[in-house]
C-alpha cells in the first residue's frame, strides 16, 4: 500500500520541481529517502533541461582536513527569473552540499549579513541579480577580513571600529517636560543625515578600502559614516559634536581617507561615504582653524 502511495510522488517530482515546495519538508525528505537514487537522477535531468547558472564558491574550513587548503567548488544551480546570488548559494547548500557555510538572514538587504566578494566586487548577495553577472560567478568571502569558514568572515574588527565612534545619541540635556517630551529634529536636518542613517553594517565598504586593508587602526568608511550621522545631528550639543570630531580627527581617523571612492562604489545602500568623510574633514579643520 505504502509503495503505491509513494510512487506517484517520486514521478511528479522531476516533472514539476515546484510541486516539491508545496509539500511539507518532512514529506519531501521522506520521499527523497525512499527513492534516493531515482530522485538524484531526475534532479540531474531537470538541471540539464533548464537553464543553469555556474557558481564558483570559496571553500575553507580549518576543522575539516580536506578543506584546510582553500579551494573553489563549482555548483550548477537551476536558474529562475529574478534569482539572486544568495538564492543560488542557498540552493547549492540545500540541494548539493549542506556544509556550505554563509551568513544570511532577511534576504532583503536590511540585515547586512550577506556581503560577499562576488565577481571581484563587494556586493550584497541578496541584492545582486544573477542575470547581471558574468558566468561563472565567483563568490568569495569579503577580502581583508579573516575567513572563519567558507564565506563567513570574522567581523569582530569591523564592529570594534563601529563602536569606537560611539554610535549612539548622547545628550546631557533632555528637553524640558513642559516644553517637549520628544526631541524633534528639523526636516532639513533629517534630510542631511538621511543617507548616512541607511547603513546596515554589512562591512562591504571596509572590505573594499585599500587604506583600511593596510592600516588596522583606521576607523574605516562605515564607522566614519556612523560618526557623521551623529555629528551632523543638530539635537546633540556643540560640546558633544566637538567630542566626536576629536575622535575623528585623530591620526587614524578621517585623514587616512585618500578618496579612492572604493567604499562609495560598493555600498549596497548607495551611501555617499566619501562625501561624508570629506565633510567631516572640513568640519575638523573648521573646528581647529578659527580666525574670527
Amino acid at each position: 500500500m505504502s509503495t503505491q502511495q509513494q510512487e506517484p510522488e517520486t514521478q511528479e517530482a522531476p516533472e514539476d520541481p515546484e510541486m516539491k515546495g508545496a509539500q511539507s519538508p518532512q514529506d519531501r525528505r521522506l520521499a527523497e529517502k525512499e527513492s534516493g537514487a531515482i530522485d538524484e537522477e531526475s534532479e540531474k535531468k531537470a538541471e540539464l533541461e533548464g537553464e543553469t547558472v555556474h557558481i564558483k564558491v570559496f571553500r575553507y574550513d580549518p576543522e575539516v582536513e580536506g578543506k584546510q587548503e582553500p579551494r573553489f567548488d563549482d555548483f550548477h544551480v537551476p536558474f529562475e527569473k529574478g534569482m539572486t546570488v544568495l538564492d543560488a548559494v542557498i540552493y547549492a547548500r540545500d540541494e548539493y552540499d549542506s556544509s556550505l557555510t554563509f551568513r544570511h538572514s532577511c534576504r532583503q538587504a536590511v540585515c547586512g549579513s550577506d556581503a560577499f566578494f562576488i565577481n571581484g566586487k563587494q556586493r550584497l548577495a541578496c541584492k545582486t541579480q544573477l542575470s547581471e553577472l558574468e558566468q561563472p560567478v565567483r563568490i568569495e568571502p569579503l577580502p581583508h577580513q579573516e575567513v572563519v569558514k567558507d564565506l563567513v568572515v570574522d567581523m569582530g574588527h569591523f564592529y570594534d571600529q563601529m563602536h569606537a565612534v560611539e554610535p549612539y545619541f548622547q545628550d546631557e540635556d533632555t528637553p524640558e517636560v513642559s516644553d517637549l517630551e520628544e526631541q524633534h529634529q528639523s526636516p532639513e536636518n533629517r534630510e542631511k543625515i538621511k543617507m548616512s542613517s541607511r547603513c546596515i553594517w554589512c562591512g562591504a565598504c571596509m572590505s573594499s578600502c585599500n587604506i583600511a586593508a593596510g592600516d588596522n587602526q583606521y576607523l574605516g568608511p562605515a564607522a566614519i559614516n556612523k560618526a557623521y550621522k551623529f555629528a551632523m545631528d543638530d539635537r546633540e550639543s556643540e560640546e558633544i559634536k566637538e567630542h566626536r570630531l576629536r575622535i575623528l580627527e585623530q591620526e587614524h581617523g578621517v585623514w587616512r581617507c585618500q578618496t579612492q571612492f572604493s567604499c562609495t562604489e560598493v555600498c549596497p545602500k548607495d551611501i555617499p561615504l566619501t562625501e561624508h568623510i570629506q565633510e567631516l574633514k572640513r568640519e575638523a579643520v573648521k573646528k581647529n582653524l578659527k580666525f574670527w
Partner: protein
Amino acid sequence: MSQSYNRGLVEDFGRWKEFTAGMWAWIFHKFTGWMLIGYLFTHIAVLSTAIGAAGDTAAIQAETDIYTTTIQGLEELFIVRVLEVGLLAVAVFHILNGLRLLMVDLGIGLEAQDKSFYASLILTGVITVASVPTFMKGVGF
C-alpha cells in the same frame, strides 16, 4: 575561533583589472608624485655639476661653459627628449588630478569624480601629444 585564513594582499593588486576610476586615479597620483620627486633630485644632481660655470662670463658668452655644454650634451640625446615628454605627461597629470582632488576635498562634484578623472587623463594625453613637436625638435621632428 581557533584558526582562520588570511588571504593577504593577493586580492589587492592582483585584481587590478577590477579597479574603478577612483582607485586608478589614486594609483596614478601616487606614481606621478614619486616620479616628480625622483625628477627633482635628478634635476638637482645634474645641475649642481654645472655650478662651476658661475662667474666665468667670457665662457658663458662663448657658450663653452660647463652649464651650456652639459645641457646641450643632454639635449642631443634622443632618450632625454623622450624622457622630457614623459616628464611633461607626468607633471600635467599630477596637476590636473591635483585640481580634481582639490574639488573632492572641497566637496564639489563628488558624483562626477570618475568623469573628472577620465577628463584629466584625456587632457593629459592631448597636451602630451601637442608637446611632442616642441620637445622633439631637431631629433627626428
